[in-house]
């Protein structure tokens, strides 16, 4: 029931076209709680509050069924760069 991880990913992808997106289901399977990391160019020049609002807006249609959303990271590509690459789990050349 409820919202799947794929729903959340699709909603954020279509709204923010992120260059990096990790959605973690922290509900233990019922789909009511998610942790989200987003890197998107659309965050450029936006304060953290505005960035979170953008994510919230993207998820608005699903929020009724989601109990908790925790936005762990909302970064621009430039901000994401200096950190040790968060996508390290991807086997990349």
């Amino acid at each position, binding site marked *: 029931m409820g919202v799947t991880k794929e729903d959340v990913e699709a909603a954020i992808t279509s709204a923010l076209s992120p260059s990096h997106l990790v959605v973690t289901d922290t509900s233990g399977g019922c789909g009511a709680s998610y942790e989200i990391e987003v890197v998107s160019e659309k965050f450029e020049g936006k304060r953290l*509050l505005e960035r979170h609002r953008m994510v919230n807006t993207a998820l608005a249609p699903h929020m009724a069924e989601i109990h908790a*959303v*925790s936005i762990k990271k909302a970064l621009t590509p430039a901000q994401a760069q200096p950190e040790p690459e968060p996508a390290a789990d991807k086997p990349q050349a």
Partner: protein
Amino acid sequence: MARLVSTALVRGLMRSSRASSAAAMSRPAIQKFMNYSSGLGGAPNANGDLTTTRVAADPDTHQDFQPTSKSSEMSFDDIVAQDIKEHPVVIYMKGYPDAPRCGFSALAVKVLQQYGVPISARDILSDLKLKETVKAYSHWPTFPQIFIKGEFVGGSDIILSMHQKGELKELLGDIAQKGEQNGSS
């Protein structure tokens, strides 16, 4: 307080009278709020004011003119507006600072308590209408919600992030001092 405000609205009184009643009420309200952070009891009563007096009868007003559910909606907006105007740090949360009923609310309180500022808190679980009012006010879907100096700051993720970046210290720095002055005067 809700009754005072809504009654004033119903009667169409001037703003000045609302302001004065608000001023008269604010001191005890602050003291109640202080109780939260100092860990004293009686927290449910402080919030109970909000819910139980909302539709109570007003002895000065004829039955026909007493607040209806419509006017109490307005008063909820007023309460939120007044909360964040009069208190430098307001958190709308699940449960109370001493007894949070949600991990995110607990986290936000814990972060705010690092700064020694007076924290004004309301439990939105105890009042669905308050919850909906706050959500509409901030255009923010989740709780807790933190307002600092009259401005919506964000939820627990944002508060934690600001804490880690040192932004919260900057924002709350002068409140810590003011809070002490208020407390002693």
